[in-house]
């Protein structure tokens, strides 16, 4: 039992936070912001597996989020599929697509990989923007309500608990993955790719695997997003959105599952907090991003955790 506590301390803290947060919620708008923060957090937890643990960058992850969202919207409205089947089909499709593109592009390194993932994101976004008969073009489209076994999620409150539960499940899955042989192989790969190959780790296989997994996390969150938001528009899968996901991961802390969650929450809440001083919002946001990376290059959560540990054991 204590080993379980040790390993899943973060998970339990997160569960407590999710259970207690509604006490401070005054209206539906607050719920809406928290729900979006939770959905972003699911994407970032997956993305951080790729960036923080495997050491590979992706500047195109919003495209997978967007594909999941469009799959759910198109399949439930145009084809009348059940929302769960649509979500599963979206994840499977995104997984296959990620696998096909990952094989050639993950041979690239550093900035070249950044360029390639960015390019894939831009291409997917242009296609969805242009094929207006299917996607509704720049105006976007909406999905049918999300329902599980006959229960339709309509209120913000029910959505909050749904997303909270999904976030916990994602964190649990990611933590287990990191502590499995796959996670150890990834860390070896991050440390020294050639070294990992020399000791017999099929590095390409693991890089592709984690790319596919992280793309499916994004697609999953995208599907939920599509059912929750009034309209799915191409703006959700642009380059800027991809950058936002990377910023959340790095800001919260690379190679830290809890860091991903904290990063996603802060970076989602911040623009809403700053909205009252609208004209200065980008300036403050940019300054915070630069300041954090200059003074805490490891990200928020790892830096604070290190400080706390030093206090505990002087």
């Amino acid at each position, binding site marked *: 039992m204590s080993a379980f506590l040790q390993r899943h301390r973060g998970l339990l803290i997160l569960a407590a936070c999710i259970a207690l947060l509604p006490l401070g919620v005054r209206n539906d708008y607050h719920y809406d912001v928290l729900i979006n923060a939770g959905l972003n957090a699911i994407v970032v937890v997956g993305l951080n597996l790729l*960036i923080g643990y495997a050491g590979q*960058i992706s500047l195109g992850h919003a495209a997978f989020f967007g594909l999941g969202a469009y799959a759910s919207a198109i399949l439930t409205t145009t084809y009348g599929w059940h929302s769960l089947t649509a979500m599963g089909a979206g994840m499977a499709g995104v997984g296959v697509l990620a696998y096909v593109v990952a094989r*050639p*592009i993950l*041979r*690239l*390194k*550093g*900035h*070249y990989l*950044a*360029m*390639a993932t*960015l*390019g*894939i994101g*831009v*291409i997917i976004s*242009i*296609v969805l*923007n*242009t094929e207006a008969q299917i996607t509704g073009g720049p105006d976007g489209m909406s999905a049918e309500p999300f329902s599980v076994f006959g229960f339709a999620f309509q209120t913000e409150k029910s959505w909050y608990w749904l997303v909270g539960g999904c976030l916990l499940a994602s964190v649990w899955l990611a933590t287990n993955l990191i502590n499995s042989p796959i996670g150890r192989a990834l860390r070896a790969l991050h440390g*020294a*790719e*050639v*070294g990992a190959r*020399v000791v017999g780790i099929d590095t390409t296989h693991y890089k592709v695997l984690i790319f596919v997994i992280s793309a499916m996390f994004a697609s999953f969150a995208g599907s939920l997003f599509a059912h929750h938001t009034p309209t799915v528009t191409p703006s959700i899968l642009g*380059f*800027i959105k991809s*950058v936002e996901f*990377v*910023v959340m991961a*790095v*800001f919260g802390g*690379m190679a830290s599952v809890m860091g991903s969650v904290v990063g996603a929450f802060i970076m989602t809440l911040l623009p809403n907090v700053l909205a009252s001083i609208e*004209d*200065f*919002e*980008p*300036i*403050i*946001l*940019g*300054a*915070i*991003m*630069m300041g954090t*990376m*200059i003074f805490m*290059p490891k990200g928020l959560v790892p830096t604070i955790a290190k400080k706390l540990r030093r206090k505990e054991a002087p």
Partner: protein
Amino acid sequence: MLESSIQFILAGLTSGAIYALVGLGFTIIYNASHVINFAQGEFIVIGGMSTVALMAAGLPLPVAIMLATLVTMAVGMALAKFAIQPARDADVVALIIITIGASIFLRGIVQLVFGKDIHSLPHFSGETPLNLMGATLMPQSLWVMGVAAALILVMAWFFNATLAGKAMLATAYNALAARLMGVDTKWVLLSAFALSALLGAVGGIVVTPITFVSYESGIMLGLKGFSAAVLGGLGNGVGAVAGGLILGIVESMSAGYISSAYKDAIAFVIILVVLVARPNGLFGKKGIDRV
């Protein structure tokens, strides 16, 4: 058929010239610091916007251009001094976030100072189109290509024939060895940002009469410049220029012959194909992993 091809090539060379300048700016900074400066597009916007504002204040065009370029170079050096230098030892990804943060920051300031409107500048030598083998060409396009070519030649001369340029190249090859030989690498970083801001600002100013400028226009131009630099092979100046021109021509050809909605997508598909075939760009050297 031939006329339209010439027309598309001319249009492609005009936008390609700007991509080449931005790509060269990426390359210079990358060589000096191994940083990809995602705020590169903002230099274009600051150059264009300040020229518009200075002209509105009553200054003649040449003076406005000079002052706007100096303003942009000062911004570039401030960025190097206050955001890049303090984080010299940070991870590559952290440095990427810093420059993205800088671009959001600068975009916010531009929006605050100059507003959200789209601005333009008068064409430098009138708007009577020239006729070239059946294709038409605006005099401003000649300005864009001419100024870009001149800047690229000056850069080539600077890096190959002056002591300062050679010091910067030496830093790119091996920063530690360059320091041991007495090169002030902090100075190299500042100069790299100043030069790259200069390229962006001048490029932004000459192209503003054609494409206009708004606080947001730096995002796409920055991406195109990055693509140009990567296509040619990061760190290779000639490659960045070639990459920019290729990108410009591919875009305008696909817009003309295939579909204007898909022109950016086709450009990126070609970049992906090139990268898969040549993982270090068209002119890049093969990298060696150190264990």
